[in-house]
């Protein structure tokens, strides 16, 4: 019983730590868009190129958050069953 509780607690703590990874991309995307606004203010003719590059850049940045998010969900839904079966 105690072993199961420890496994569950470990998975829950791990999931919480993994989800911290989701904070960074949000801040990064916001910062990038802020800088893009400033750049377009200086050079309005570069709007098209800038939008395209930033769109793909934001998608790449977001993947890091998705990795952490998926890891967290796997720790909540899948890992406890596997670890408890190993006991």
């Amino acid at each position: 019983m105690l072993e199961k509780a420890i496994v569950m607690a470990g998975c829950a703590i791990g999931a919480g730590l993994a989800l911290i990874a989701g904070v960074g991309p949000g801040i990064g995307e916001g910062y990038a868009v802020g800088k893009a606004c400033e750049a377009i203010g200086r050079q309005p003719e570069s709007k098209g190129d800038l939008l395209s590059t930033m769109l793909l850049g934001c998608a790449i940045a977001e993947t890091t958050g998705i990795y952490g998010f998926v890891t967290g969900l796997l720790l909540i839904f899948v890992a406890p069953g596997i670890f408890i079966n190993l006991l």
Partner: protein
Amino acid sequence: MKVQETVKKETMHIAVGTLLLTAVMLLVFLVLGRLDQPVVLGAVLGSGFAILNFFVLGLSVQKSVATGNATRGKLMMTLSYSLRMLVMMGVVVLGFALPYFSWVTVVLPQLFPRLTIAGMQMLGMYKPEKKGEDEAAEEGERAE
């Protein structure tokens, strides 16, 4: 709000790449003899949401840039990211919780847009500018 041509074009690229990779994923399931209804339904949900997520990201970027205000754009983008992640959490939890979907095929397509962009980079469709080149150009302008 009118959707800009750039957003439509990039969403189309990502959609094609995601659908191709989803087809490859289903092919692997078929080869392994695991292709059943939950796998197909999960793939439809996962890939559909991945494409929709990218399109909404494009709309958010377009809207944030259109504000012209750095602080407001920053806040809008952060809010959009949080909301999109929240909806993604709902979709993926559905994939885990409901027996109608296979969670593997719901989760994997969320990573396909990144793989598509990597593929585009390899094919030369999208080349991020090198920092060195930018700095050299700036230095050249200063010298002139």
